[in-house]
């Protein structure tokens, strides 16, 4: 009834190729942006900002990164956590070496360091495929994690061995450190995520994205059609690690505000982000957001939702029950919708388009 393309004619190529070809989609996206940029910072509570929105945004960035690699290019990586760590440490080094440069520049620039490391660890992908590659990327995870603790230069010879986030400002407003308000951190993070999502979406809709997908579908055929496998696979690793790196830097500087990095960038983080990508939907930009929302909010929902349902919870038992529930939910989702939440979203849109008629 309200959501249909009837009467919206595409009169030129650009219209036809548009990411949001339907007017209602464009209105929807504009509404979401207004909600995220204006309503939430003004009306949102501290809890909403600190425990829901900021983690959600950081994880969406990371899962967009992994989705580019795993969903679009078909290379499974279990090293995302470590690549995030590279971003965080690069940002830390850069901002201590050049404190006068704006922190936002460094958060984004640290992605390039991560991309470089990603390319290095992506090299085996030319020889190795499938799960062999997945296990090989674990080498990156463990090696980098080892570097984070064993190379004191990385954490500036701190006694604590942790990243310490100093005060940095943007337009005279504190955006990192203890004095930065949640709203400021949220707005910076949201801007970064929005811009990078737009960039990623454009990459994926262009020639590069298509060559990624060709490699995913069958790399030999792609090679025969003239796609340079070496370049494409390494580029996928680079782009993916760039996003992971920025996510890692944002995580440390805008969310955690410093801390023991080895816990934040361990193998569980890698797995968690892989979950987000799979639950959200492989090869779908919006799926990355759905997956990140689902997985990052699940513990919070369970923590507050279960007592509300009348299930009494004591500390340790609650934790065990959460594990059981998370495990069961993952299996449940995979069985019900192996193509992820993005597919559900598509089905929902299709239903809306037909509504109120059955076909």
């Amino acid at each position: 009834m309200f959501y249909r393309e009837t009467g919206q004619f595409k009169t030129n190529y650009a219209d036809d190729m548009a990411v949001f070809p339907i007017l209602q989609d464009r209105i929807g996206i504009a509404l979401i942006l207004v909600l995220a940029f204006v309503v939430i910072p003004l009306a949102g509570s501290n809890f909403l900002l600190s425990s829901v929105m900021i983690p959600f945004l950081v994880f969406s960035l990371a899962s967009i990164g992994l989705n580019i690699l795993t969903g679009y290019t078909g290379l499974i990586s279990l090293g995302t956590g470590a690549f995030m760590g590279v971003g965080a440490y690069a940002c830390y080094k850069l901002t201590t070496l050049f404190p006068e440069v704006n922190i936002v520049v460094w958060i984004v620039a640290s992605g390039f360091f991560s991309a470089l490391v990603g390319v290095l660890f992506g090299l085996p992908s030319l020889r190795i495929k499938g799960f062999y590659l997945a296990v090989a990327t674990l080498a990156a995870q463990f090696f980098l994690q080892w570097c984070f603790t064993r190379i004191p230069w990385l954490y500036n010879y701190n006694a604590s061995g942790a990243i310490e986030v100093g005060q940095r400002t943007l337009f005279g407003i504190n955006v990192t450190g203890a004095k930065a308000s949640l709203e400021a951190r949220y707005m910076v993070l949201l801007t970064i995520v929005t811009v990078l999502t737009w960039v990623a979406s454009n990459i994926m809709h262009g020639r590069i994205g298509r060559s990624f997908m060709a490699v995913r579908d069958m790399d030999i055929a792609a090679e025969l059609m003239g796609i340079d496998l070496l370049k494409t696979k390494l580029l996928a690793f680079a782009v993916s690690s760039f996003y992971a790196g920025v996510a890692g830097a944002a995580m440390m500087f805008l969310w955690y505000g410093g801390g023991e990095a080895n816990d934040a960038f361990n193998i569980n983080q890698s797995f968690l982000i892989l979950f987000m990508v799979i639950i959200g939907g492989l090869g779908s930009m919006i799926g990355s957001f759905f997956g990140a929302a689902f997985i990052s909010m699940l513990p919070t929902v369970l923590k507050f939702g279960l007592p509300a349902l009348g299930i009494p919870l004591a500390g340790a038992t609650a934790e065990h029950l959460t594990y059981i529930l998370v495990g069961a939910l993952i299996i449940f989702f995979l069985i019900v919708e192996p193509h992820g939440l993005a597919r559900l979203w598509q089905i929902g849109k299709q239903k809306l388009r037909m509504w109120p008629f059955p076909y």
Partner: protein
Amino acid sequence: MDILFKVLIDPFLQMGAMPDLFVQTIWDGFVTGVLYALIALGFVLIFKASGVFNFAQGIMVVFAALTLVGLYEMGLPAPLAVLVTLGVMFVLAVAIERVVLRPLVNQPDIILFMATFGITYFLIGLGELIFGGNPKQMITDQLYLPRGAIEVKMLGGFVQFQKIDIAAAVIAVVMIVALAVFFQKTRIGRALRAVADSHKAALSVGISLNQIWVIVWFTAGIVALVTGIMWGARSDVSFGLQVIALKALPVLILGGFTSVPGAIVGGLIIGIGEKLGEFYWGPLVGGGIESWLAYCIALGFLLFRPQGLFGDKIIERI
């Protein structure tokens, strides 16, 4: 030049100077390697028969060991506890086949891989809920496993062999031989090999895939229990042990996902290589390199054989 000397020559001089220490390191690596091989064996069994990359194998090891110790603490005599644990592993195999594998049949590999993550989380939660999260002592004496060490005088020094390690190696060999006989000589074993070769062909000659999957997951469960007892005897039984699953992954890619001999040879290479590397080259970079050295060894082999040492040759067609 100094650094080259330290990396290329000095470790070998050290090996030559104290051969007894060298033998000791090799032995330690060998025993660790046997245990890695056992975990990898569980992976390979399941991967061959059902094409599932079973990340939950590590947790199954811990879960089996925890169930055994937990049941014993509840007052069951040790032999009975072993039997009941086997029962639990069987129920687990049936449940996984019914709840996870059957609905997910024909899905891409990565979906099944993720599903085993779900199993991992579920088992962690369940195990801790029932048996508590505290580390437990493995019941070595009750299971008639030896303790103590034998010291052998050789090469101008003493080399210590823990009895439990010798037992572990013997048991592992016995189990691998038993599995080989089971695969080669029995009816079910032949069916398993048929399924591993081709699901469709196996179905067409009347082999029930569902049944085979239960059997293979149960076999992996038995392997997990044995591994769990052995690892548990060396340290204590807790979910911290699950990291050993991550240690077994390089063994897998080194040996090949589909090869039982590969798992064993890979386990030994990784085990020995890891210990030697940590002991002789580790101090150069500040130690702690065990966590990634195994992956680098495996990667080195993979660059020359992308399907692992004994894996099936990858043939690609358009």
